[in-house]
């Protein structure tokens, strides 16, 4: 299945990647090749096969509804690009 440069731009928007117009045809070719390769999956009929999400078919573990986290805000924010008074700074989002 061939992917067009326009589709690459649409997917890049969904993935929050900036792929510029000059690179889009390159990625379109690469993606098309990969999708053509994975299309081999269609050589086998899988109707009725239960999809497998996890190797051990594990169930989610439950725990008591008790507070286990301690406040580590300062530690976690020590690796942030921009913080002020405990808040993460981003460009203005509300005019």
């Amino acid at each position, binding site marked *: 299945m061939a*992917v067009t440069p326009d*589709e*690459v731009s649409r*997917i*890049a928007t*969904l*993935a*929050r*990647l*900036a*792929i510029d117009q000059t690179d889009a045809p390159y*990625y379109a070719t*690469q*993606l098309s*090749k*990969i*999708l053509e*390769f*994975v*299309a*081999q*999956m*269609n*050589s*086998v009929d*899988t109707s009725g*096969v*239960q*999809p*497998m*999400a*996890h*190797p*051990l078919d*594990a169930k*989610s*573990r439950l*725990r008591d509804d008790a507070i286990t986290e301690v406040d*580590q805000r300062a*530690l*976690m924010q*020590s*690796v*942030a*690009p*921009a913080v002020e008074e405990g808040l*993460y700074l*981003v*460009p*203005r*989002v509300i005019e």
Partner: protein
Amino acid sequence: MDLHATSAAVLSKALAAKQISSVELTKTYLERIGRLNPSLNTLITVCEELALEQAQAADTRRANGAAGRLTGIPYVNKDIFCTKGILTTCASKMLANFVAPYDAHVVEKLNAAGMVMLGKANMDEFAMGSSNETSHFGAVRNPWDLERVPGGSSGGSAAAIAAGLAPLATGTDTGGSIRQPAAFCGISGLKPTYGRVSRYGMVAFASSLDQGGPMARDAEDLALMLTELAGFDERDSTSADCAPEDFTSQLNSDLRGLRIGLPMQFFSADLTPGVEERVRHAVDVLQRLGAEVREVCLRHANLAIPAYYVIASAECSSNLSRYDGVRFGHRCEDPSDLTDLYRRSRSEGFGEEVKRRILVGTYALSAGYYDAYYGKAQQIRRLVQQDFAEAFETVDVIAGPATPQTAFELGAFSAKPVDMYLQDIYTTAVNLAGLPAMSIPAGFSDGLPVGLQLIGNLFDEGRLLRTAHAYQQFTDWHLQQPAGLKKLES
């Protein structure tokens, strides 16, 4: 004793007998790293100061009679495991400035064992690659031939052991990332059962496939290290709740009654004759040691790679959405608005292969394509798992090649991603099914190492290690060292 070519098990005995101290051992390795690593590029960060502190602490602990088997033994840690206060880059520009605020569970375990971390090993960016060429910090060289790749993604770990820069290393294996570099570098590597080793603090790539494990010279060392790495951790939602096991206790050289299966699909036209000859010879050796060999059928093996690339890419596109330029990691200069901040930070921070996989994964999960790609891949995953389950009704261990060929030249597959993906043809099925598997040295083809892959049933690492150990009692492939390094050593 040639320290850099000595196994951890032997070093452990030398430490216990006070023939050498951990500080002396650590200095020997650091000095060798200083001499050889500039040519090999196996490490992103060398932790000289920390290593000497840890070695000193290990010697003190030993003097106090509180040493364990790996206390004072140096290792290198794949740069995918978070290390508190130390750069953890995952070989990406995105995390080039990331000093982890906490330790991974694996690091906590190795610290508790008293091991000495020499450095953080180079790898493919976010573990996405089979050649170690996607690293932001440059390719790793294969110690057996500096013009060839060490394999990936745990290429730095494998090359470091092969070059005698450390006796042990951590690795991670999502689609073959421990076994393929182990094969290419002539060392031993074990991908444990999914859930055996905690993923807490291990940078996520594809969470239903990712599994950390040990890399070493031989099976005995793998057993020693796995004993430390394994264990339940409530902070990993898929951690398996198993009783602690000493994986060294089952090692012996008797394979009588062991049933080994050879999957005909692993001896296909893709397999180069040099690798096939060595693998078949290794199976003959196992037979001579008492194992019974029969054929098994993994009918859907050829569909494992397509299904793997859909599932791994889908999970990576979701996992890597956390890199937003806001909370940690790379942030672009002067963003005009929030969307620009996200998009430019991510595009500048991620390399080409990572972006390609995020795009494939986003496509496969997007409206209208989900059933055709992700749903279909999950159904094939079930078929692959069922093939293995059927095979393990009649055999105990499955044997075959780890890779279709030996280490290839740097740049051989640049801009040919699908051809590169096919290098993982014999490894990805194991991850889809969550099984344990290893690669051990089985000889050479044109002077380059060949890996024998052994695959076990769920949580049957003990039997896998016993099989590998028996083979290594009878062969000396795992003792060979790259002759070409001599030039760098002088």
